[in-house]
């Protein structure tokens, strides 16, 4: 099942993953996964702990070499042209905080140079204003609250105006109010800047509110895919959370047999 808008055509693909796999010895952490993210689309990557979500994200970021398959960011193959592919992407994750011994401005300048951003001074000022960090621009990131750190990390994630943004549980450490603001920012980013977003979260309310499409991952395989508002009804579940729990607890063989 796919909710790709045919009107956008294939040119608007931010990420295309084909037959991606990662094996550690005899164990498949990610097993023959294929999907894509359109520009302007927010796709939720869901699944229980150990399902393979972070492994998938690490492979897209070039931090982990796949055993099989390909990753294309825009039209660039990550293996063939790592620099061009990673120049088009960026990420933020709760476990990858910015260096705490640099200020917000210093971190943005540092990462801006790594991404070879032109007009860096102006871009840093824009992001600092956009993420309401003006009064914190000279504060070391290690001294920021969780919400402020998340905003700073998101500002860094947008420094290069990425076509593809990977967000691994970006709101995990935020209070509901701060999480709502971040969700709104990300949603508007997808629509206004036509950025493709791959989002992992365990908060099903959030996923329903933000994502255009979700992928359920379990034991390294994609089991379900579809619109988060429609998908539960199609599978006899009351809510997305009920569906998540059922998929997470179901034996893999049963589900894959069912879907085939």
């Amino acid at each position, binding site marked *: 099942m796919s909710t790709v808008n045919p009107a956008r055509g294939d040119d608007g693909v931010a990420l295309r993953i084909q037959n991606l796999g*990662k094996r*550690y010895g005899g164990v498949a952490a990610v097993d023959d996964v294929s999907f894509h993210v359109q520009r302007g689309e927010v796709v939720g990557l869901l699944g229980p702990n150990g399902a393979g979500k*972070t*492994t998938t994200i*690490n492979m897209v*970021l*070039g*931090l*982990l*070499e796949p055993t099989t398959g390909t990753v294309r960011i825009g039209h660039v193959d990550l293996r063939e042209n*790592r*620099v*061009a592919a*990673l*120049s088009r*992407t*960026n*990420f933020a*994750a709760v*476990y*990858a*905080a*910015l*260096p*705490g*011994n*640099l*200020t917000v401005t*210093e971190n943005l*300048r*540092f*990462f*801006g*140079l*790594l*991404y*070879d951003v032109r007009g860096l001074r102006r871009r840093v000022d824009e992001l600092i204003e956009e993420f309401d960090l003006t009064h914190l621009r000279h504060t*070391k990131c290690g001294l920021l609250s969780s919400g402020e750190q998340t905003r700073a990390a998101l500002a*860094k994630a947008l420094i290069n105006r990425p076509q593809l943004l990977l967000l691994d549980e970006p709101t995990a450490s935020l209070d509901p109010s701060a999480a709502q603001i971040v969700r709104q920012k990300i949603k508007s980013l997808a629509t206004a800047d036509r950025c493709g977003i791959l989002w992992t979260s365990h908060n099903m309310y959030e996923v329903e509110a933000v994502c255009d499409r979700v992928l359920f991952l379990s034991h390294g395989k994609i089991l379900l895919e579809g619109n988060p508002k429609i998908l539960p009804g199609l599978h006899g579940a009351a809510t997305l959370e009920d569906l998540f729990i059922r998929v997470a607890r179901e034996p893999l063989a049963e589900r894959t047999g069912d879907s085939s």
Partner: protein
Amino acid sequence: MKLRPIAGIVLRQIYLLRGSPVRLFPMITWVAIDIVLWGFITRYLNSVSGSGMNFVPTLLGAVLMWDFGTRIMQGVSTAFLEDVWSRNFLNLFSSPLLISEYVIGLVITSVLTSSLGLVVMLFLATAVFGLHFLAMGAALVVFLLVLFVFGVTLGIAGSAIVLRLGPASEWLLWPLPAVLAPFAAVFYPLATLPHWMQAIARCLPPSYVFEGMRAVLAGRPAPIGLLAPGAALAGGELVIAAYVYCRVYRHAVRTGLLARYSAESSG
């Protein structure tokens, strides 16, 4: 390869020094202590030896040059460890930064930080203990260049060890210069060492430098026969260290070690 990512790596270190000037303290203090300590030892030796030999250039000059090499090594390693300590590998290596750009950035950072130590050492050794460092002439440039390349090599090799074995292996890195010093014949002629140690010493570029330094200070011409193989060895070992680092990085990407590094750094 692009200049701006390299500048980013260097700028990061400048920001760290600006944000916490206390970081300058160890760059200056340890080399100053070394020069003062060895300066007085050489004075004492001069006064009691009665041989008329001046120990200042041979011992104090050797201390200064060895410290320069080790500070280069520590400059590269410390800049690398900043990324380990701040758990920055995921952000760093998910960017388009090339490994070559990263390593060059570390080396430039090291040149900046160790230059400060070199200036302090030169000032103290010259002003307080009367070392005429420049008396070694043009050979001095070659000596320092070989030690610089050797320091970079050690720094890259040490960083590769930490990248391969994990953050806890940091303690393996710091004693490296002390372990190598006896083989490098810093303070005594190579012939003083037993044969098995001489065999190891011949694999270390600094042993050629210090043999050459003693020859120049004894009034003999710059020993090209010593310096050429020393420089070639230094260049060769640098290439090997860079190759090993790239292999270790590739291994870390293939096995997931790089992705797990942040979690291990916090432990």
